[in-house]
């Protein structure tokens, strides 16, 4: 098991390194200037480029960059929030996006599971139909539409929540964006849980368990839900990354200083900010790879057979 885990981690780190190099190269061939300026002379811009070491061979630049990154230094922006270290700007954005996204995931997963289980237990009845309609709606309606609806209703018509995100009242002003972001997760989880559970209910081992006289909560939790969880964990992983890395439109509309908004600013601002695009690219990739790794390892916990087959592969 340990060897398997180490191998997985090694692969993940290698993937991340390759992605970083590709990003490092690609961002330099994108159209747009890292020092967008209509007032600086060509010499001034050349000096700025030289200061940032942008004229060195790309491999030299990459090695230097990786050296700095490993020490936790992502450099400074070239055009975006210039002056402030990227670390400072990024940490605020991460904290905002992660907390709001995190709340959305927890809420979405819990309610989604609950809805899915309810629907599966009431298969073919009214509650099942209700949950199905709800999930379809939730998947179809984009989160920002729901956000605008909530913002309009609960900040404008009934002015209870703040109209814009207010970092000084974090929890209070995170309600509307978290709720609207959770809708998609909620619906997806509900749909998958219901379908998986219905399938598992029909399987031989559940029938056997029922025949042995098992029923009720114990049956559902121990046999049905646990087996239904495997595919759900697979769906949940990319959802988690999506939500943690910020929902761009929601952040923009609700005025949240988060990662999604930062990414757009870095690419579509006045210029193209190499260092921000890279730092955010590394963050996105690391999260995705990291969560996939966790999912792989979780499979082993949920279903020992996966662990066994992985071992077999090694042999």
């Amino acid at each position, binding site marked *: 098991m340990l060897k398997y885990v180490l191998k997985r981690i090694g692969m993940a780190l290698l993937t991340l390194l390759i992605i970083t190099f590709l990003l490092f190269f690609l961002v330099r061939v994108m159209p747009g200037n890292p020092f967008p300026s209509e007032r600086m002379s060509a010499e001034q811009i050349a000096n700025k480029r030289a200061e940032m070491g942008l004229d060195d061979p790309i491999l030299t630049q990459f090695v230097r960059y990786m050296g700095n990154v490993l020490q936790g230094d992502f450099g400074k922006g070239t055009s975006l929030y*210039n002056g402030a270290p990227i670390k400072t700007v990024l940490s605020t954005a991460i904290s905002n996006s992660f907390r709001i996204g995190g709340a959305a995931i927890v809420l979405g997963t819990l309610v989604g599971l609950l809805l899915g289980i309810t629907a599966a237990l009431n298969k073919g009845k009214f509650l099942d139909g209700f949950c199905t309609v709800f999930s379809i709606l939730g998947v179809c309606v984009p989160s920002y539409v729901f956000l605008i609806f909530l913002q309009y209703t609960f900040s404008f018509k009934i002015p209870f929540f703040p109209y814009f995100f207010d970092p000084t009242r974090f929890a209070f002003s995170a309600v509307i964006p978290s709720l609207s972001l959770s809708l998609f997760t909620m619906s997806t989880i509900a749909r998958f849980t219901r379908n998986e559970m219905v399938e598992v209910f029909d399987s031989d081992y559940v029938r056997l368990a029922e025949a042995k006289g098992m029923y009720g909560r114990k049956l559902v939790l121990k046999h049905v839900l646990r087996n239904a969880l495997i595919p759900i964990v697979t769906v949940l992983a990319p959802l988690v990354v999506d939500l943690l890395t910020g929902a761009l439109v929601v952040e923009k509309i609700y005025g949240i200083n988060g990662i999604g908004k930062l990414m757009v600013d870095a690419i579509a601002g006045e210029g193209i900010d190499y260092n921000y695009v890279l730092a955010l690219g590394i963050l996105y990739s690391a999260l995705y790879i990291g969560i996939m790794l966790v999912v792989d390892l979780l499979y082993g916990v949920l279903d020992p057979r996966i662990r066994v087959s992985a071992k077999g592969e090694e042999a």
Partner: protein
Amino acid sequence: MKKLFCMLLALVMLASCAVSAVAEEKYLGVMLSTNVMSLDTNLATDGESFEVIADCIDGLMQMDADGAAIPAIAESYDLSDDGTVYTFHLRDAKWSNGAAVTAKDFEFAWKRIAKEAGEYAYLLDTSVGCVKNADAIIYEGADPDTLGVKAIDDKTFEVTLEVPVSFFPSLMYFPTFYPINEEFYNSLEEGTYGTSPETFLCNGAFVLEDYTPGTATLSVKKNADYWDADRVKLDGIKYQVVGSSDNALTAYRTGALDLVTISGNQVAAAQKDASLSQSLKVTGAGYMWYLSFSQTEKNAQNGKLANANLRLAITNAIDRDNLVDNYVMDGSLATYTAVPPQFAASSTTGEDFSADQDAFLDYVGYDPEKALEYFETAKAELGVDSFEFTMIYGNNEGDEVAKVAQAIKEDVEDALPGLVINLQPMTKAERLDKMQNDNYDVALTRWGPDYADPMTYLGMWITDNSNNYGFWSNAEYDQLIKDCTIGAYITDYDARWAALFEAETLVMQEAVIAPLYTKANANLITSGVAGVEFHPVALNRVYKNATIE
């Protein structure tokens, strides 16, 4: 028991007093269209940043309601007889850490601007401010200590210029010339100046209260130690970055914001709405949209746009009234001069440099017949019957830009049969990149005034200027601009003014650019809010005199 009850009652009353006192704080809720990029005067490049910096820091001079320069930290100044040495006498003012604002703070900040050679360092060089030795420091890396600025004592700041600059005092309200306390600056970790309220010293009407780089909300609160504190009536300003104008309008309606900018197509709706039409205020945004034509051989079918008649044909085919009335719709002004109106007035006559929009009607206007005549001449001169050009524009520079581009295409193609314009949208970053690398035919672009003198526009079209995107070159023009900057006209204000007009005439005669419209902002201001001063140049909004009922 009774005693306890009384005490409780008193407590509750006290608490409610405290609550109502908080509620009565008069913070103005103001919309920002984009994030504040930096509070460091060396790094800030956008209007939003300049506005917040100016809330918190006073320079030697400040803007009055009409945009004229009036004393701020400088109580008065003397000018030497030859017009090249300014001696500013500073008043007693304090930084927010209690230190006195001294001439050294200015000396330090100005030298730093020259040394770092950032975006706005050019305001010190011989194209604008003409501070002694600035060119050598900015462009050749000379010792910053050779800059012509000197703190004679704590209260006297002397600036030596290469040549007299008539509008020099009005430069002093621009943030590039603001002071920074050296001791405080040096006590900070490198790169952290201006990144939080703790790392930003203020001497202005407000102090920074809440800010982190990249934030969508920030606030400033009244500075009790401000030298002119009695004048400031607001308790503070709460800024909110709002991404879309639809959202801005709703936020305004909820009362979340007191001052918002709405888009052109919302203006018509707002005018019909009784509750909103009262609150609508159109102010000049300063910058002018225009068409730039690349005249080099490698573009526009081997340099076809180097032909002046072809450019004149295009500029006369565009219906600018139609553009502002039906597409921009926010009160922007159709513009027929190379220097837009509203920002540069003569200091002797007080007249706006571009008040007369009919001055160049011979060369620019909406006249399809004349356009066709120019077009026929151009065709004969070039020996070609049909043209196909690509026009680039930014798709992230405002809702109206794509519509304006489309309207220009239609106007030009209708008036000039045989000329085809293909539209190519891209991000602003890409558009600038293409223009700076001379890789375009026609570009829909804009320029905002940095200082209150026509030179902020006319300086662009001299040979080899980096903003001369068309690569137009005219020796007579270059000489005129030189004479107005460092030569014959610098001491004779009216002669310089006339020479500037002459230079502008050359630009218009040859349609070096096709001016389109001068942008306005359609603002909604909550009733009861008064005294916010709007300027098309330098600082777009000033709140020192603002009040809330």
